[in-house]
């Protein structure tokens, strides 16, 4: 039933599981403590990090570090969709950062949408993670985000453009921990017998999809997250050999 080897006609000629060209650069802003720009095809997002700053907001737990997310759309007023993105990003990043290292501090992450051509929230999550690394905020692991779409006929495509997102029956934004290359013995990195990268940090779906479709999306998403993790690792290793930021 699942046409895994089906040739799908995507407008830009990609195959089902092919991601758009990725580009990432860190340390692009001078005032921000950490900054990154992430682009997947034509979708481009800029993220900046300031922190840790003293004090937490009124309703936050002062025994832990707090994360504040500000989402800036390309044009127009800030409305409910932007607030939703802020909330999803905040919760995702709270589970990725080590919050007990700097209690009673706030780290602000500002996300600016430069261009939206599909898979906006996953790009923002990836950009925010890279900016946090650039700022040196302590994290357990990286969050790798991907978007999977389910079409009416049941096939799943990865990393849709805006037009593809609108035409599809349903799509899901999935965030996984990054794949681990470790010198430690295998056993210590497993959670309940499964390797850590099989876990899901965040999943947001739009539209109706069957349970089977959803699990298929998870499979495809997990496979793609391994490729994304490799890209992130290469990018971070390359730039860490450059001269560090002064002042």
């Amino acid at each position, binding site marked *: 039933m699942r046409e895994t080897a089906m040739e799908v006609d995507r407008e830009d000629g990609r195959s089902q599981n092919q991601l758009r060209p990725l580009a990432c650069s860190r340390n692009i802003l001078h005032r921000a403590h950490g900054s990154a720009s992430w682009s997947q095809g034509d979708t481009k997002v800029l993220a900046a990090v300031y922190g840790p700053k003293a004090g937490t*907001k009124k309703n936050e737990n002062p025994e832990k570090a707090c994360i504040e997310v500000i989402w800036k759309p390309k044009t127009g007023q800030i409305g409910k969709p932007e607030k939703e993105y802020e909330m999803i990003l905040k919760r995702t990043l709270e589970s990725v950062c080590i919050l007990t290292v700097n209690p009673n501090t706030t780290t602000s992450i500002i996300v*600016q949408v430069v*261009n939206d051509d599909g898979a906006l929230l996953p790009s923002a999550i990836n950009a925010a993670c890279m900016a946090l690394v650039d700022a040196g905020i302590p994290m357990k692991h990286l969050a790798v985000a991907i978007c999977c779409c389910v079409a009416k006929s049941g096939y799943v495509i990865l990393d849709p453009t805006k037009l593809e997102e609108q035409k599809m029956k349903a799509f899901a934004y999935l965030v996984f921990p990054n794949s681990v290359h470790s010198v430690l013995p295998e056993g210590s990195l497993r959670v309940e017998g499964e390797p850590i990268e099989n876990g899901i940090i965040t999943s947001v779906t739009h539209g109706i999809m069957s349970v089977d479709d959803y699990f298929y999306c998870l499979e495809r998403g997990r496979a793609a997250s391994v490729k994304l993790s490799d890209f992130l690792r290469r990018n971070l290793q390359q730039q860490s050999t450059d001269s560090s930021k002064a002042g």
Partner: protein
Amino acid sequence: MEGRLANSWRLTVNDKNFIKTALLSEIRIDGRKPFEFRKISIKFGREDGSSEVQLGQTRVMGMVTAQLVQPYRDRPKEGILSIFTEFSPMADPSFEPGRPGELAVELGRIVDRGLRESRAVDTESLCILAGKFVWAIRIDLHILDNGGNLVDAANIAALAALLTFRRPECSLGGEDGQEVIVHPPEIREPLPLTVHHLPIAISFGFFSNESILVIDPTHNEEAVMGGRMTTTVNANGDICAIQKSGGEGVPRRVIMQCLQLATSKAASITKQIKDAVEVFNTERALRKIKRHPTSTGDDVREKQN
């Protein structure tokens, strides 16, 4: 998180004295001469009407969008031009999200005065149906990095975005000719805006000792300077706007010196903007040519079905 003292950036007394003393010998802390502008780089995004300008360490993004609206009652034959400035918290730790502060409002007003009141953008050509439908052009300026002199960078970003923006072509139709049909860009090529001249904003900083004058202050110099003045001039030598709000008083000859300097800088900046727009336009034309082979391919497949 109200602006707590611990989080706001303050320049130390030593830094301030160093900047002032260096200026006495005509040395600026980034190695420039007093009347030297920082390097300007103008880049464009994929779509029409989006620009990113970098002036030294200052970074501003401009976005132009258009919408069909009803015109103002007292100006039924003119389009509407509005400027929205966003001092994004990513630019400076002291910028708070939410309502624009007085700096943001002042910046928006200076750019607005330069574009609208000098009639740089032709608003009459934006009218489709007098009294009913006109184009409202909205310019969003996002300040991404505050390295000083936000006004000049924002002004250049707004101009670059306006020059590369294309509005859809529309025609009157319907039974009584009162309906407006907006043609999508694939059917009819969108049109550029009519921009008569380019008003360039040039900012000066005044320092109290020996009435020293610098052009294009960085944010360190802005924290030290006693007064500022922004002049908006165009390459023809017309003064579009002058803004000097408070700060220390300067003699008349200094103002005249500023205006002369501004006119000479405006010519070179205008040329830079126009060159960058030319490059973008040729790239855009090339992209259009490349699109045709794939689009004719799709048509063939549809016909076979």
